[in-house]
C-alpha cells in the first residue's frame, strides 16, 4: 500500500531541476514518484527530460503542453490574449516543438489525462489543470472551497492533485477531502527565490499530510544552457532572479501583486 509519494508538477524542460528533484525524493524514501505534466516549454533541450522519466519509471499525466506537442497543435493552449504573452509563448512553443524528437512526441500524445490510486485509504486523483479540463487554472485566490468539494464529489476522489498554474498551494476541504496544487519544478514561483519545488503526500495518523519541498539545483548552469540555445533573455532572467517576466496576464491580482512585473 502506498503511504508516501512525491508529486512533480510542470517540468518545462528543466532537466537539471528534474534530476535534482528525483534524487531528493528518493533520499526521502518515497514509495513512488509521479509527474503531473507540462514536460516542455520555457527551458532548453526538451529531449533531456525523457530519459530521466523513463529510467526512473515515473508515471506522467498529460499536460496541455504535452497534448499540444504530441498532437502537433499550433500552440500550447494556455489561452493567452495579450500580444506580448503570445509572442513569448509562441517562441517557446516553436522551439520546443522543433527540438523534441518524434518518439518522445508520440509518447506524449498517449499519456493519460488522469492517474488514480489509493494512498492509505484515500482515493487520489492526479490531473494537470483540473479533473474536468487539462488547462483550467486553479489558483489559490480564485478557487473556492465549495467548488473544490464539488470536484471531489463529481470525480469521486478524496484528494485531487493538480499543477498548471506554477504556484503551489493546498487546502483541506470539508469531510476529509483535500486539494493540492503541487507546484512546478520548471521555473521558480515568482517570489524572488531561485529554487523550485515539489510536493510529498504522506499518510500520517490517518490524515493526509502535504509538504512542499524546495529544491535547489544548478540554475546558473541551466541559464548558461538557455543562453547557448538562444532562448529569450526574459526567460533566463526568471531562472536567475526568481521573478516571472512573461505570461503574466493569467495571474489573479493577489498572485500577481507578489511578483515584480
Amino acid at each position, binding site marked *: 500500500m502506498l503511504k508516501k509519494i512525491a508529486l512533480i508538477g510542470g517540468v518545462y524542460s528543466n532537466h537539471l531541476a528534474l534530476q535534482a528533484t528525483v534524487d531528493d525524493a528518493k533520499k526521502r524514501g518515497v514509495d513512488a514518484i509521479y509527474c503531473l505534466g507540462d514536460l516542455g516549454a520555457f527551458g532548453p533541450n526538451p529531449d533531456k527530460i525523457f530519459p530521466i522519466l523513463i529510467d526512473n519509471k515515473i508515471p506522467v499525466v498529460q499536460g*496541455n503542453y504535452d*497534448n*499540444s506537442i504530441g498532437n502537433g497543435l499550433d500552440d500550447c*493552449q494556455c*489561452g493567452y*490574449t*495579450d*500580444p506580448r504573452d503570445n509572442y513569448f509563448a509562441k517562441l517557446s512553443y516553436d522551439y520546443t516543438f522543433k527540438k523534441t524528437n518524434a518518439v518522445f512526441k508520440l509518447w506524449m500524445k498517449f499519456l493519460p489525462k488522469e492517474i488514480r490510486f489509493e494512498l492509505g485509504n484515500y482515493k487520489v486523483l492526479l490531473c494537470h*489543470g*483540473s479533473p*474536468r*479540463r*487539462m*488547462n*483550467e*487554472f486553479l*489558483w*489559490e*485566490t*480564485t*478557487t*473556492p472551497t*465549495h*467548488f473544490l*468539494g*464539488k*470536484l471531489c464529489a463529481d470525480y469521486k476522489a478524496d484528494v485531487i492533485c493538480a499543477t498548471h498554474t506554477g504556484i503551489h498551494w493546498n487546502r483541506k476541504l470539508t469531510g476529509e477531502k483535500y486539494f493540492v496544487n503541487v507546484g512546478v519544478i520548471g521555473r521558480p514561483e515568482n517570489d524572488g527565490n531561485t529554487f523550485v519545488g515539489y510536493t510529498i503526500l504522506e499518510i500520517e495518523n490517518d490524515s493526509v499530510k502535504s509538504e512542499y519541498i524546495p529544491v535547489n539545483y544548478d540554475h546558473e548552469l541551466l541559464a548558461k544552457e538557455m543562453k547557448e540555445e538562444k532562448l529569450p533573455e526574459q526567460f533566463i532572467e526568471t531562472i536567475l532572479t526568481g521573478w516571472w517576466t512573461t505570461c503574466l*496576464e*493569467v*495571474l*489573479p*491580482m*493577489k498572485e*500577481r*501583486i507578489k511578483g515584480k*512585473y
Partner: protein
Amino acid sequence: MNKTESVPKGNPEIYLDSLDNLWFQVAGTLCNIKCEHCFISCSPVNHNFEFMKFEQVNGFLEESVKRGVKEYYFTGGEPFMNKDIFRILERTIQLGPATVLTNGMLVTPEKAEMLKGISESSIYSLELRVSIDGYTEEMNDSIRGEGVFKKAMEGVKKLVDNNFLPIITVTKTWEESQDDEVLNGFIDTLKSHGYPRPRLKILPSIKIGQEAVRTKGYDNYEYVTNEMLEDFDENNFICANSRVATAKGVYVCPILIDSPDANLGNTLEEASTGYKLKHQACYTCYLFGAICSNYSSVGRDA
C-alpha cells in the same frame, strides 16, 4: 444573396455544463453616465432593472455554494451607485473570488480604502475591472461622456494606491491595424497616471442596445447556426457556464437581459435549463469566446 435567406431556421441550444460564474446585475441598468456603446443602454434614468438588495444577493450566494460556483461578478450599471455593494462584497469574498465591473468614477479615497479592507479580509481575490475606452481624453470621452476620462483615471490611481491592480477593460472601437498603437497608448497613459503595472482586457463591442445605434448593428447573416458548432467547444459560450441574477430574476447572460426570453426563472435551479442561441449578440460570443470572464478563469477543453 438575398439577406433574409441567410437567417437560420433552427437555433442551436446550449446546455448549462456547470455554473462556474455567477453574475449579479447589482446596479441594474442604473449608471451615473450614459455610454454611446452600452449594450443594455444604462443611464441615470434607465429603471428597467433596479438595484439588488443585500438580502436578494445573499439568497443567490447561498444557493450558489450548493452548486459549486467558482467565481462571482458584479456589474450594472455602475455597482458603486448601490449603497449595499460594500456589504455584498464583504459577504461574497468570504465564499469565493469577486470581480466588480465599474467605471471607476465613484471610487473616493474612503471607498478605495474600504475595498482594500474587504480584499484583505479574505484569501480570495477581489478584482476591480475599470472600463476606459480610450487612452486619451478625446478618444474616451467621445464614447463615455465629457469629463469621464479624468475621473476614471483618478479612480484607477486611488485603487492602485490601495494595493489593487485594476484590470482596465477596453471595448474595441478601433481598426485591427491600430491595435499596437492603441495598446501602447493605453500602457503609456496608465503609467503616466500612476499605474506602473497596468493590466488590460480588450473586449469586442456587442452591437445591440446603444451600440446598435452608434454602429450599424449586426448584419443579417450574423447568427450562430448548428453547422458552426461542429468541432466547436460549446464551453466558449458564457451560457454554458454562467447565469446572471437580477432584481427581476435569473437571466441567461449579462448581455441579453433586455430580451424577455432570456429570463429563465427566479432561482439558479430554475435557470439551469438549456438556451437557444437565437440572438445576434450570441454571434459575438461565438467569435470571441469567454469574453465576460477574467483571464484567470480561462480554460478551454484541451
